[in-house]
């Protein structure tokens, strides 16, 4: 180990012990207005009636998210594109104005800071972006790039800054002699190292890394990930590591949060989350990663449908419209089999994934010939009546209305009655691996 150096930590998180919470996010919301364009207020939602909506709509990119990040740890934040993970990262850094909620960082609420106070704080929180190309100014030399944040925060004098920049170049695995080069002379992995050096220049405590390795080839990815781990140890850094790649998340994180449509649906210790996932979305996500081993796999549980719009997210659990384990509404008696069939039928009608058929064919196709007992059976029968080809009137227009009616009938009677639709889930579960709290937003744990 080299000298723990003047780069050290005279100002980093002095009063917070390792493992105590460094960042505490509570009830954080970030809504975006859609206010450009002539028809901005008009929106189309085929799941609603009438499908055209007029009025200001807000995209709920991050909706009521709470968690903490502990000093010295890496919290992985994983989710698919559009789930709000980058927005969350940027809102925490106050690169975006939060709509509501608090961001407690070392005793200050970042959400309410402004102006000079906030600017000062920025030396303690830094960010690394996904695209190493566009996050470096092509006209500046690498040395200047690394020194710029120090200059902005009035750190050191010219000579001191140059010395520190060179030292940092070496720390991130670059040659200090490259101080005078331009970014174009570096490869993607090297540029990401320059980004690392720049972020480290002001001696931050906390770095938000937004997909830092996803633009890199695997072999280069490993180099950069290893360097990030080494630097974390050396400088006592805390990372919020945002990525869509579950393998990378599994490698680098201590704890992992899974995001879906603006909410955190599960948060647990890494080992616990990967080995004992408790939210159906996490399970689906884990099952769909292709494993680099031809002897594994085949156990793919593919998720149906697509992510709903964040403008009008589903009530209750946001994953319920695609959840393979949507809970049966309580007021009816169901056997598991009949509920599974009804759910499948309901979704097939909703998405119109099958060609029009006759009454008889529908019963066989979806229910194996026997409809559910009692009231649910009657509702299903009514829906079949509406869409079956042998009952329908000939006019095309009419059929469209009948499909819509059948869909609304099924959704109203079943999906919207489920506890998944009526209550927002939030449960704490006994972990199987480790001792850390395991949070899962799923009513299966009620």
């Amino acid at each position: 180990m080299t000298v723990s150096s003047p780069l050290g930590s005279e100002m980093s998180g002095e009063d917070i012990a390792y493992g105590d919470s460094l960042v505490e996010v509570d009830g954080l919301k970030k809504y975006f207005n859609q206010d450009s364009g002539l028809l901005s207020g008009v929106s189309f939602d085929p799941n609603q009636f009438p499908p055209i909506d007029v009025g200001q709509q807000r995209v709920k990119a991050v909706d009521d998210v709470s968690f903490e990040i502990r000093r010295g740890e890496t919290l992985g934040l994983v989710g698919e594109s559009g789930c709000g993970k980058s927005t969350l990262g940027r809102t925490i850094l106050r690169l975006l104005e939060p709509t509501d909620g608090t961001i407690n960082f070392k005793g200050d609420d970042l959400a309410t800071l402004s102006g000079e106070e906030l600017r000062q704080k920025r030396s303690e929180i830094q960010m690394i972006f996904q695209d190493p190309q566009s996050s470096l100014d092509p006209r500046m030399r690498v040395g200047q790039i690394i020194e710029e944040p120090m200059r902005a925060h009035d750190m050191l004098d010219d000579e001191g800054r140059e010395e520190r920049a060179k030292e940092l170049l070496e720390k991130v695995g670059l040659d200090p002699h490259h101080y005078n080069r331009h970014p174009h002379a570096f490869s993607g992995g090297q540029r990401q190292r320059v980004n690392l050096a720049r972020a480290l220049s002001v001696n931050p405590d906390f770095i938000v890394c937004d997909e830092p390795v996803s633009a890199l080839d695997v072999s280069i990815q490993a180099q950069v990930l290893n360097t990030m781990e080494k630097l974390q140890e050396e400088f006592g850094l805390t990372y919020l590591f945002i990525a869509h790649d579950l393998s990378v998340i599994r490698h680098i994180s201590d704890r992992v949060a899974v995001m879906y449509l603006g909410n955190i649906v599960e948060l647990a210790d890494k080992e616990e989350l990967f080995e004992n996932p408790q939210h159906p979305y996490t399970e689906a996500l884990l099952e769909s990663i292709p494993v680099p081993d031809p002897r594994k796999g085949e156990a793919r549980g593919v998720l149906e449908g697509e992510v709903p719009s964040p403008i009008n997210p589903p009530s209750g659990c946001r994953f319920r419209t695609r959840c393979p384990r949507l809970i049966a509404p309580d007021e009816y008696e169901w056997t598991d089999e009949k509920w599974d069939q009804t759910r499948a039928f309901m979704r097939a009608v909703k998405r119109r994934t099958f060609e029009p058929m006759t009454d008889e064919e529908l019963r066989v196709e979806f229910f194996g010939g026997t409809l559910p007992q009692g009231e649910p059976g009657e509702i299903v029968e009514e829906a079949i009546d509406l869409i079956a080809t042998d009952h329908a009137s000939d006019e095309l227009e009419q059929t469209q209305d009948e499909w819509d009616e059948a869909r609304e009938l099924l959704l109203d009677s079943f999906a919207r009655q489920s506890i998944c639709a009526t209550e927002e889930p939030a449960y704490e579960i006994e972990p199987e691996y480790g001792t850390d709290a395991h949070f899962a937003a799923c009513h299966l744990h009620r």
Partner: protein
Amino acid sequence: MSSEPLLRVENLKTQFFTDAGTVRAVDGISFEVHEGEIVGLVGESGAGKSVASMSLLRLVESPGEIVGGEITYRGETLFGLEEGPDGELRERDDMLSNEEMRTRIRGNEIAVIFQDPMETLNPVFTVGGQLREFIELNRDLSGKEARKEAIEMLREVGIPDPEERYEEYPHQFSGGMRQRVLIAMALACEPNLIIADEPTTALDVTVEGQIIDLVDELQEKYDTSFVWVTHDMGVVAEICDRVNVMYLGEIIEQAPVDELFHDTKHPYTEALLNSMPRPDRTVGELEPIEGVMPEAISPPSGCRFHPRCPDAREVCQRVHPENKEVARADGYPHNAACVKHDVFDVGYDESVPLDKEPQMTASTPSAGDDGE
């Protein structure tokens, strides 16, 4: 092994003539695709896999040019050169003309799925209209029949409510749905071979899963062969029957998928597998491959991987290894281009291990732009 391969590529060379010099993007690769199999073409960016796949359809554009080799598809020569009377290489007589390539081969016999569906679909025409036009042109159907067929194809690839969505524009489709449209387009003429160039790379994992399942299903149904170009070893393990690993314009290992992962014969493939974080288990420390891939404009002497290879010895600097059979599995050869295997017999065992130059990760990416 079935008798005659569907597609045979021999010693294919594609080069780009630039101001800085000749880039040997694809430098003498050979492989075969048999009926009904999915053949992977894997490598990191810059390995030449996309250029190789585009060469198959003669879709390489200037300043790029196919300069050597032979491509045979079902007995027809897609590309072939011969020596003319004055010693110059010229195109062979039996090579298909551009016209024939366009009308008979592309789309009808061999189709392509590209990585970025937004760039492939025209944003100012409806999705259905584009699909219909494609079917109309290639299959000689009337507009009405083509429309029916287009809707049928959209349903086939799992697009919900295809009649409605037929009228929509590409921007109204999500990434996964657009990729499905491209698959529908590729399948529309029931080709025998589909070249898929990183078709799932831009997609989320759950969507990628859906698409891979769809391809599996359709492949079973239509018995289509695939050349699957990707950098993702996970996808390769999941979908491919046989795999070609590319490094700097060359194929350095060829094997059935199980052998490639469990009986790896080339140090590069090995290193690639070791450098990957795993989704199915926690890896303590990753073993990255040292350095970066050199540029194809000035490849290293001898074995092109030797400057980064953990097993490199003195002989590796001198001898350029051809891809040779080092084992057999399921009737298929397992080829590797590494002199450490006995079949090469160039004195690897006696050769001295190379002194590792301290490979700074900061070595210049190319020799060209050293200094200011």
